[in-house]
């Protein structure tokens, strides 16, 4: 009963977020191989966004923030790769990963047209929104669906890291105003 209710709530939350619901509704929860792929993809997306920001950002704080993102997400993804290797799991591409990648490449193109303070503001605003979206997916979909205990634990560490990033991004955004 409880499980069913939580699943319904999770589905309701997921339906309100644009990319992370396609292909993995509450009915067909993602497999560990798909979860690993989604988590890794989400990391790569933020690494690419950070690399763009390193080239284009004007503010010293924004540059430093991008460097923090690069360092942390590379560290998480390194751990994720080591884990899938250890568990002998091959990450499996899926509709959620595809939707995330599409959304991210559109965003990169959009941000690429901006420069200076306008870029800084848009990049940081997107970092807040993006981490919020990923954290929501981790909490409601990926962590509850993960079967393997080590994968679940890595996702939980990831969630704490990304919640920190979200707060950090919110601070940077507030300082830009």
């Amino acid at each position, binding site marked *: 009963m409880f499980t069913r209710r939580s699943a319904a709530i999770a589905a309701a939350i997921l339906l309100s977020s644009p990319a992370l619901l396609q292909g993995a509704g509450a009915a067909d929860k993602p497999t560990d191989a798909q979860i690993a792929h989604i988590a890794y993809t989400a990391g790569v997306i933020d690494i690419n966004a950070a690399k763009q920001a390193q080239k284009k950002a004007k503010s010293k704080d924004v540059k430093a923030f991008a460097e*923090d993102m690069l*360092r*942390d997400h590379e*560290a998480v993804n*390194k*751990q994720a790769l080591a884990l899938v290797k250890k568990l002998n799991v091959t990450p499996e591409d899926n509709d959620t990963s595809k939707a995330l990648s599409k959304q991210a490449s559109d965003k990169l193109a959009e941000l690429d047209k901006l420069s200076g303070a306008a870029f800084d503001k848009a990049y940081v605003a997107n970092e807040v929104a993006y981490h919020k979206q990923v954290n929501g997916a981790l909490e409601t979909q990926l962590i509850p669906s993960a079967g393997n205990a080590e994968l679940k634990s890595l996702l*939980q*560490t990831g969630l*704490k*890291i990304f*919640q*920190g*990033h979200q*707060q*950090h991004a919110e*601070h940077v955004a507030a300082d830009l105003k």
Partner: protein
Amino acid sequence: MPGRLFLLPVALVFAAMVVPAHAATIEITMENLVIAPAEISAKVGDTITWINKDVFAHTATARNGDFDATLPPKKSATSVLKKAGTVEYYCRYHPNMKATLKVEP
């Protein structure tokens, strides 16, 4: 020349003795984005050692500016407490990591 080198350890021993006898070293760990213990009491003159067990870099940054230690992954950093008071600190990279130090005179 070798004579001088022999004096160095002696000097280090004396330097260590200058620290008051009651001074303690308190270890605080940062693991899985959690600072433990989250609240701890210490005395002026004590040394705090933060041990970062994560693969991520952290900082121990006092809100009042008393200290700002950077901890690369799997490394530790120390700070000697110079004044009394309650100090709240956090990690600049992950502001959801928070803790409190109660420094007694």
